[in-house]
């Protein structure tokens, strides 16, 4: 199915999506269930795992890897935002999902302790209006776990553009999310 999609079968994507979604959703749920504060959320690891599972039924994979991750990134974002919303409404009071940022233990610089998925999602929405390409780069890299090269392939740009886009978007989002409320 993945290669049919690459070959231009428009139906293939819509048939593929629920499959990937289901897989990702299951993984995300399992992940969120054991999520603890202080643990770093790595959506990319989930996407990776989903990919490996899907490979079992779809051996013809390598050409489509980047594309698969491209779709997954968007789905993963949606799943995590959805889960965060559910948590938010189900919990007593306000219980948004916490996501910690990675941090080296040797360096005691001041960093925002965490950002929640919902805040990131809405900051990404704002970024999309300013620079859609940068927003998509973050989505692919963070939610999809794509390497610079894969991101460049999906976006149809050069690696150095991806690097620049990521660098600026990263700084800008960091600025948005660490701003005191």
């Amino acid at each position: 199915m993945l290669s049919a999609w690459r070959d231009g079968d428009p139906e293939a994507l819509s048939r593929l999506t629920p499959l990937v979604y289901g897989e990702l959703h299951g993984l995300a749920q399992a992940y969120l269930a054991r999520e603890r504060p202080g643990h770093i959320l790595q959506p990319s690891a989930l996407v990776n795992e989903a990919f490996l599972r899907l490979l079992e039924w779809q051996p013809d994979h390598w050409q489509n890897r980047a594309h698969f991750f491209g779709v997954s990134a968007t789905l993963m974002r949606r799943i995590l935002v959805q889960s965060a919303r559910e948590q938010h409404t189900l919990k007593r009071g306000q219980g948004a999902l916490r996501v910690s940022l990675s941090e080296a233990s040797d360096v005691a610089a001041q960093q925002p302790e965490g950002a929640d998925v919902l805040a990131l999602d809405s900051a990404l929405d704002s970024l999309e209006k300013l620079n859609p390409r940068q927003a998509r780069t973050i989505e692919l890299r963070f939610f999809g776990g794509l390497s610079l090269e894969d991101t460049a392939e999906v976006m149809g740009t050069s690696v150095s553009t991806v690097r620049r886009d990521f660098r600026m978007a990263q700084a800008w989002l960091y600025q948005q999310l660490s701003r005191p409320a």
Partner: protein
Amino acid sequence: MTPERYERIGELFDAALDLAPDDRDGYLSQACAGDETLRAEVVLLLANHQRARNFLAPSEPLIDSIGPYKIQRQLGEGGMGTVYLALQETPLRREVALKVIKPGMGSKAIIARFEGERRALALMDHPNIAHVLDAGATAQGLPYFVMEFVDGLPVTRYCEQHNFSVRQRIELFIPICQAIHHAHQKGVIHRDIKPSNVLVKQVEGLAIPKVIDFGLAKALHPETTGDTMMTNVGVILGTLQYMSPEQAQTGGSDIDTRSDVFSLGALLYELLTGSTPLDAKRLALENYHALLERVCDEEPVAPSVRRRESAASALSGTLDRELDWIPLKALEKERDRRYESVNGMVRDLERYLAGEPVEAAPPSRAYRARKFVRRNRLSFAVASAFLLLLVAAVVVSASLAVRARQAEQEASAVNTFLRRDVLAQADPRNQAKPNTPPDANLTVRTALDRAARGIAGKFPREPLVDAAIRDSIAHAYQGLGIYPKAEEQAQRALELRRNTLGESHRLTLESRQMLAMLVSVQGRYRDSEPMFTALLADCRKSLGPDDPDTLEAWAALARSYNLQGKFEPALEQFRQVEAAYSRVLGAEHPSTLSTMESRGSVYFAQRKLDQAEALQAKVLAARKRTLSEEHPDTLRAMTSLAATYHVQVRYPLAEELYRRALAIQRRVNGVPHPETLITMFNLGTLLTNQARHAEALTLLEENRAARGAVYPPDHPRTLRLLVNLSYLYGRLGRVADELRMLEEAYAGQRRVLGPDHPDTLTSMVSLADLHAKSQPDRAEALARDALKGLRGRFGPTHPDTVSAVCSLAKLLQARKQYAEAERIIRESLGAQQGQAGTPGYRLRLMSQLGEVLAAQPDRWNEAEPLLLEAYEAMTPGKNLEEIEVFEEAGKRVVDFYTAKGLPAKAAEWRRRVEADVLKSKTILQ
């Protein structure tokens, strides 16, 4: 901001980043050509680029396994290399930390040195040591070390985050020393003790320190100072601040265990003062050789002085001068003058904690004497009070019960008893033993226990003397908050008096009152009610309706109604008792004020806060006038008034009052005292409400730990603490703990308070919320029962009742029982009509109804106006709970438009709701 502007900032940002850091300023000044705003925006973005580091960057899947270890994710990057979380599959499956050393450090030599020390490392076995398990080289030839994974924070950050007191810091530091001492005994010197190598993880609320990286320093450091590896200023700084002079000078060729003593001293110094002995800010400015000089020559400032100087730091309060000696001795430049072993340092710290003179300073005679008196002053005071009580009891019983000649004999018997069995214990010369912690209650408790045991059989022919002494002991235990022992003695005293004087004698009645009060105070409210009812009837009959003892029994009965949540009868009884007290004893008599205070607490429970506040303020003012600021009753009034402010969301006022009361209570009562515990609990809850989670956790955990000494594990107040702790855990993301604790609290409440108590009912609503998905049937049953109970207890317009309606409606909606959900909300809406002061709840219900309708596409037309009207009409700003309700109402609008397939409208609403909520929160702060 426009896309064009963003684009322009991006160009400048990119161009600046391509330049050397020193050239950026000049470039930007020129490129921005006077547009200061633009320049500031770029500079800010550049700064955030520096800070963002790995933010949102995926961990590059460069390597997915190293040797037999599967890489999970990166944990951090330090001076020496990168640390990963990895999974070991065999021989056992576990998570490990894997440290890959940076290129250029000679992996063969490193691994060889590590192998050399491996046998010694394998001998270490200590709970506070994280083991290095393995070492090897990656496919690229980089050396790596595999260590036990410690999911924790550097000890300094941990103490900061948890707001640890000096005592807590020392208590955490001692096991760290013990770990190092253990290693020393096995012949292993750590060589690189610093905060990032001492991680603290939290296990079931306890802070467990773990020393990591044993053996790494030796393996990594070549024989001479590794100028080659010291290429990074950060690494030099991070290490030199904790390094002994001999280590800095020789690079490790001539060091022994006393070098670790030095590093521990530096760590302790930082824990106590918030900064390292050599000021890190100044260090950063100097070159390597100047640094070395300072490490070797500069004497550190005394910790107590440093702490005072850095008043701006997070640490508050002053440091005991005496504590100065310990880190200073460890930090001596000449190793002969340091502690000979880590153990010596531990012993001194323990001495300090025990309030004994430390060895570090040459102790003079006067100094020792000063310490001794300070340690025992409190015990002296409490012991004297207790003895007065006993003597008074004897005098009373003697004058009441016995004739003169007998009295003389009895007085002498009592004297002997007091001298031999009680006074001997109270004498500080007999109880001062080395290594005994300075427990304020030690003397008294020991004396009491001894007296309680000793009295049996001492007065076989004078049961009333026996009873009087037991009654005194019971009162003393009660004063200390040791209720089970108090109950035991009160029970025995009652039996003696009942047998000797009959059921209705005043002394018997007093004992009955005491016993019933003790049953109640231990949370057995349902058992205490019939005791008080019978007591009141007998008092009226034997003592008359206006006798103070009768009135006291009456007030106690009303209190037991209140504690059981029977508010209306409680209020009515309190009103009558208060009138009687006022008539008999006067308007400002302590008993009149206590009854008024109780009436205020009923209003408080009913959330009639204006009435509660008025009464509480009046009581507090009267107590300040007639008693003193530090009197326990004044403090209790302070806490009660603060609690009302708290619920009214006048947080700053509440916090100030709580803190004032708590400071005095800690000093006067000590921590494991019921009233101290209540203030502490309330303050912890206030901090939770303000999302000051770390402070809240510290306080509530302390409270929980201290309770064991006073209350049985299923005391209603302990259960309430569990409910609040559970909520806090939820906020902290500890979902499993949240559920477990709430279930535990609920089970206890059902058992102790019964299924109809307000505490039980509100726990049921919370449980229903949490189990909505996992156990929908149970959740629905819980919500239904809770709603029924709350409606009966509080009426249909109480906030808790409305919350229960909303929870149940949500559950029903999730189960697609729309009609039933709608019916329940409409019924509740009907009940709000014509009720004063509850428009907020009507709007909340309206929005909830909108959500139920929005779930049914054929009723979208009805849903839309409800959702919009509810949101528009809400005016949050009075408290956080309201803001949450407001935010929820806004989200419903957004979700509605999303479901309806109008993403643009949804997005527009989302922005608006976010802005509104932000505004409300700002107003509140």
